[in-house]
């Protein structure tokens, strides 16, 4: 790590330590490490069990975490704000099926036995994407723009 990097790291630890020391931290107990109740298969509706309560320390209702089509389609907004509550159920390995700097295979192949799951793309995408991606390459950038994309570079060498 470069000098500046380690300096920042140290700073970070100091800042957190300071918060703790100053009693700035919220006194509320942390979430359970794993969700205390087993769930049935498929996407959960939190409000079925938690009704309209507000999540501890969150100021948001459990119902707003119901895994509806709109929650799933917009999960990034929730992920940015509520990583601690997601972590009660989702280990990071759940997310790496679709997100990661270097992912082994297309999510639709990895989850080939789960047609009920979402997928950024399906089918033989190497041939399909040539027809589809024109409309919106910006959506592809999120996962392919800064990641391991040597596959893509094999064809996409020159500015188009």
């Amino acid at each position: 790590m470069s000098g500046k990097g380690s300096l920042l790291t140290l700073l970070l630890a100091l800042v957190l330590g300071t918060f703790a020391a100053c009693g700035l931290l919220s006194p509320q107990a942390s979430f359970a490490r794993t969700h205390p109740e087993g769930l049935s298969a498929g996407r959960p509706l939190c409000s079925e069990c938690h009704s309209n309560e507000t999540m501890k320390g969150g100021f948001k209702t459990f119902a707003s975490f119901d895994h509806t089509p709109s929650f799933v389609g917009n999960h990034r907004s929730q992920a940015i704000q509520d990583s601690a509550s997601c972590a009660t159920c989702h280990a990071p390995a759940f997310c790496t099926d679709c997100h990661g700097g270097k992912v082994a295979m297309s999510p639709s192949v990895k989850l080939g036995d789960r047609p009920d799951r979402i997928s950024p793309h399906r089918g033989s995408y190497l041939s399909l994407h040539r027809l589809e991606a024109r409309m919106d390459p910006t959506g592809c950038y999120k996962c392919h723009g800064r990641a391991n994309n040597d596959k893509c570079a094999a064809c996409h060498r020159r500015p188009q």
Partner: protein
Amino acid sequence: MKTRFRLLPLFALAAGAASGQEVSVYGSTLAQLWKSETPGFDKATYAPATQFLGIDALNLGTERLSLHLFGWGMADLADQSRYNGANGSKTQGDLSFGYLQYRFPTANAELKAGRFSVNQAVGIEQVDGLSARADLRGGFTVSAFAGQPVLYKNPLQTGHEKNDYAFQRNWIAGARIGLRVPKVGEFGLSYLQDGQNAAKDLPRPSETDYTRRQVGLDLRISPVAAFDLSGRTVFDVAKHPETPAGETKPSNIAEHDYQVSVRPTDLFALTGTVTERNYRAFYAGTNLHSLFNQHEKGKFSAYGAGLVFGTAAKLQVTADFRHTKREIYGEANRFGVDAKWAVAGTKIVAGAGIHQVSAPDAAASPDPESLRYGTSHSEARLWAMWETGKLSFSGDGIYYKFKDSTNPNLYGKDAMFELVVSAGYQATPEFKVAGDLAYGANAFAKSETRGLLRLEYRFGGPAAKGGKK
């Protein structure tokens, strides 16, 4: 190479932990076989085998300390490889994450050290370093991370280009501060800096910039469960060279992306989205400038709407519409319906969908005289899953039909399809085996057959809950 050495101490730690504490090991082994027949080429066979492996070790001395590792490795067992690894090798792999985590009993405070992914700032970053988060009094939350970005070198970069990439992205740090307001929602402000050595400061000034400095604003307004507005705006705050006189200065707003959702009852919901992205700012930091072109003319904007009827437990019908506008290409509309049906009392779920895309013609090259071809198409999808005892089955078919068969990317075929069927057997609670068989035809291959054998396992640790992992 480097990764493997970094891995060693972590595995040693895992082994040490295994002697006493709660250790769980999970993973899957996927063996694939690919056969494709492309007119004019020999039939090709690929046989990659992939191993995913995760280890969680809890209670390392204290119940607050834990270790989490996940990685994969792939080897191609056949002669040809569908894709060669970075330097033409037939094996590749990655440590997706490997970190020590310290969780405080209050405030959801935690520290992570090692390799992890964060999404608390602007995008998703894979970092070797340290991260921390905590809830503070008064509804504030803070999170921050710093370290070295995991680099993805492009094998086509050579010489100084390759060195520039590592030189520019020498460290990464980000932070977010959020405020939660009861009966209102949450507001966040984040900052990200990726790399510090700007391209222009290089000993040999470079055209290509891999660094980013961005500020993000995110919000969620949900005073009642029936209403939810969320989204973010990201600003590019990096210094850029002066815009030449006569040219318009590119916007410093990387993106606006907002969604509003109204759900008056559990049986009905309405969603609307708006997005706007400016290429120079949005594509900042890309390692594939030829594709994610920061100099593209104009901007990208989109809006969409969705309607959901019913619940996932029985019948759910979703209608969606999205309008996109990309200045150099034109406006496109995509709309359609999906239905998902669960048969109560049995373990059968099925779905169907149909979508229409009407899109403008595209030019085969920037040359205005060149051939133009249509990209409009329709797509249909039909799938089902059935579970009975220890057995499970699924089927998934998609079909594409293109309007303009002169599109050069179709190689004369105006339809494509893929059908995937799968059967699985949950042998024990820890162990599942499944086989997928895919068959299809597309522009590249007259026929493509893909077989996949999947072994999934999980040993030790608490029984799977929620999202399994």
